[in-house]
């Protein structure tokens, strides 16, 4: 009802929403239906003048990361959004699995201390993208740049023990594309006739790879992929798609064969030595969820992330899922009648941002955020794996050290085997912290689940 609008919200300016992805950053205002800008997560370093990705600075010293983040946030506020940081609350949409404690703490420090924002909330991207659907249960797969992560959410609560991740995403495609271009592509033009691409380029620039991926490549159908794989060595009976002449710098033109166009994205669906691919990620996540939730989860698949916008991606994923289901080990353990996909009112690369935008538009935003006052008293940001409770300061100080050690494997590439590592520090968190964790989940769910809007008190 419009009755409620403007009652207590009138004086306050709309919040700003940031989704700082590894490759691209989405920024905009709350209650808008799309971000204002999608820009590369890059900043020019003051010392060297080079463009660097801010996530690559994570390994550097805290001062370096801080100065890079200061410059990047400055760009977001003063070149893109054009608003004063002091006047608006901030919603940061982040992936629960990939952001490191180091990064989010530095970001919070930059926002509170340097830009003096009134409040910040770190919203888990997997959860908030359910806001855009109006449902409270779903299996969310985020196919981003470095990693693909899968997180089942049931009635607004993330099933943490069932998350899955693999480093199969945009970056993997780029690496594969570079290797196959170097191996087989030839370049004409220049001083002398045809030459292999590797003769004058040691490494191909990432922006060129991305452009080739976006404009030329696609995800082929399951039938064609199996036919390819069946006669790997002998000449394929299939007629590939036509080759593309791709202009490079100067008068050079590279020929990108149909094989490269069609088969580059196969890297996402080829099984690795452990038999894991994107399809098996989803099935593993379902398998690790409680048995009574499995069917509901399979019927509420949400595929987000920029890489999933490749032509043919969702169609291929669906056929892969059905094909995997018929094969062991899933054929023995899982019996699912159908996989159903959600269509969200957005483009796949900013669904999580849109969820954040809806969260930021609500009156309850203030009660869920960490305010500047609270942060100045205690400069810590609560995390699902390291909650901080004031009364138990001494106890937790020891625990957080352990937690940081435990949360590091989350961001590393070997996510698959670190389940046991990450669950152990969580059990060392005090019971009060766990209660608080539940209430955070409760708050988030109460807004997305229908009328039981009462938050559980902690």
């Amino acid at each position, binding site marked *: 009802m419009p009755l409620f609008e403007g009652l207590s919200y009138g004086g306050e300016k709309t919040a700003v929403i940031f989704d700082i992805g590894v490759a691209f950053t989405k920024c905009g205002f709350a209650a808008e239906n799309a971000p204002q800008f*999608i820009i590369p997560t890059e900043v020019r370093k003051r010392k060297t003048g080079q463009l660097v990705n801010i996530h690559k600075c994570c390994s550097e010293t805290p001062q370096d990361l801080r100065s890079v983040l200061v410059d990047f946030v400055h760009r977001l506020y003063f070149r893109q959004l054009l608003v004063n940081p002091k006047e608006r609350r901030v919603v940061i949409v982040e992936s629960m699995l990939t952001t490191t404690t180091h990064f989010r703490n530095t970001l919070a420090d930059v926002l509170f201390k340097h830009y003096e924002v009134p409040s910040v909330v770190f919203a888990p991207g997997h959860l908030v993208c359910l806001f855009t659907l109006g449902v409270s249960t779903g299996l969310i797969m985020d196919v981003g740049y470095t990693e693909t992560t899968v997180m089942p959410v049931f009635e607004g609560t993330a099933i943490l023990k069932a998350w899955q991740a693999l480093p199969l995403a945009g970056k993997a495609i780029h690496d594969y594309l570079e290797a196959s271009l170097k191996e087989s592509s030839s370049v004409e033009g220049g001083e002398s006739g045809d030459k292999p691409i590797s003769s004058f380029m040691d490494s191909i620039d990432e922006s060129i790879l991305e452009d080739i991926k976006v404009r030329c490549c696609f995800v082929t159908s399951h039938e064609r992929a199996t036919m390819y794989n069946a006669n790997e060595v002998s000449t394929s009976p299939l007629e590939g798609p036509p080759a593309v002449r791709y202009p490079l710098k100067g008068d050079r033109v590279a020929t990108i064969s149909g094989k490269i166009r069609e088969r580059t994205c196969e890297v996402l669906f080829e099984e690795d030595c452990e038999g894991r691919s994107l399809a098996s990620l989803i099935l593993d996540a379902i398998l690790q969820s409680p048995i009574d939730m499995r069917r509901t989860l399979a019927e509420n698949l949400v595929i987000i992330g920029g890489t999933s916008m490749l032509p043919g991606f969702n169609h291929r994923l669906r056929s892969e899922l059905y094909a995997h289901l018929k094969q062991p080990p899933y054929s023995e353990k899982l019996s699912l009648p159908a996989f159903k996909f959600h269509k969200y009112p957005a483009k796949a690369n900013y669904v999580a941002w849109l969820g954040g935008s809806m969260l930021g*538009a609500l009156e309850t935003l203030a009660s869920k955020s960490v305010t500047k006052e609270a942060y100045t008293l205690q400069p810590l940001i609560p995390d699902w794996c390291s909650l901080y409770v004031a009364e138990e300061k001494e106890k937790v100080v020891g625990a957080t050290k352990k937690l940081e050690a435990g949360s590091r494997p989350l961001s590393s590439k070997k996510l698959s085997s670190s389940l046991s590592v990450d669950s152990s520090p969580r059990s060392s968190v005090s019971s009060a912290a766990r209660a608080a964790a539940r209430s955070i989940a409760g708050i988030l769910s109460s807004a997305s689940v229908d009328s039981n809007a009462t938050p559980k008190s902690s």
Partner: protein
Amino acid sequence: MATFVTEDRVLYAASSGAKAPLCRLYFCRHCLKIRSTNCVSHEVDSLYCPNCLENMPTNEASLKKYRCSNCFDCPTCCHTLSTRATTIPMPDRDQPGKIVPKKVYYLACGFCRWTSRDVGMKDQLVAGGGWQNQENPHDKRIFYLLDHFRQLAAKEKAEKEKKKYIRRRSHLHLSDKFGLSSVAARRRSGLLSVGSPSMKESEDVKIQDIEPNIASEDVDDQLDDSIFTQELDLSKVTNIKQRHANPDVQPMKTTDLYPKHKHLLIKCSQRCRECEHNLSKPDYNPHSIKFKIQLVALHHVPDLKMMSFPSLILNKESQVVLIVLNPLDTLVHMTLLPLEKEKDDWSTAKIVIPSCELLLSPRDDAADFDENTDQKQAFKDNTSVVVFRKANRLAFLIKVIPQSQDEEVKVAFQMKYDYRNLASALQQTEGKEPEMVWLQHSVFLNLGRLTPQS
């Protein structure tokens, strides 16, 4: 000129400890401290369109999503579009059957030759244009969802407040034994009669169940068979930048590219974090490059420069000529002091600092043209230190003994000078003389590498 070109040679320490060239620092004349870009807070001062240089008030800008309503960017190359006029024959409105030439307008890019006719946009009859904006196809659904969540949030908030209210009531019951019950009861009933209608209303609001999104087995991106047979024309496929320029639609084909309103730019003002005074405030008018307040350090702190590259030999005393420029319109008494050892993480060489006081004559814009004045006599300089002086410029010698073979020769010292504090004089009663204060700044010099020995 040298100030901006060799800016990494002479660095000043800001109050936060950061080192930066003087031209990148501010001087807060209220705190009397040097401020770096990190110890000032930036603020959006005014918004304007970089193409038409038209100011836009903040409220209007936020309604228009911070974009100019008149100017457009080319969707393919991001260059500014210009409006072109042409005449086309059109049937006359008054006399049917008769065809008259009419003036129409369309948008064209002067850089990549894209025109609004390429994508089938209709020509406009007025130059200002009534160009249609692209709508997000999901507007309705998003608005519906948002509306629903807002109701839930409002209910959640109301319930929280109700809890507070009930707790207060229970305290009133406790006070019974002091014989206040009747008073409390009366007050309560009064309160309730006032408060109840609105309370009831918010309780009774039934929030309708949301229409959840229905998942389906279908996916909509099945490949068309033509992709395997048809040649791909690269010029018809958009690149990722063109797609991201319009996040709502993100068109895949160049035939779906529509012009986007030009994004605004801002004029920024800087404020001292400590005393919250403005350090820099630009003129409101976007045409103007002037400032209302401009407290850059270059105008308030004596500016040190190296006159030339000195010859530096390991473990030998060498002389370095520095020039100092007085930007103030008062006579400045400057002395150089060594930097405390514990603060010094910079030096790689020993420095011998002149012990005498250096007198800097005030800045006078006309002095440069006045060749007759011989200032040497007026100031009685110590000739072993002062090399020459001209107007508000003074060249003097320091001695440096390089200590390390491989590193660049770096020295640091402090600069102490008197400054007329105009800010405090303004605050105090009139007629009082401006107070003179002594200011001290740390200066860091990078003299470059050792001179190669032949």
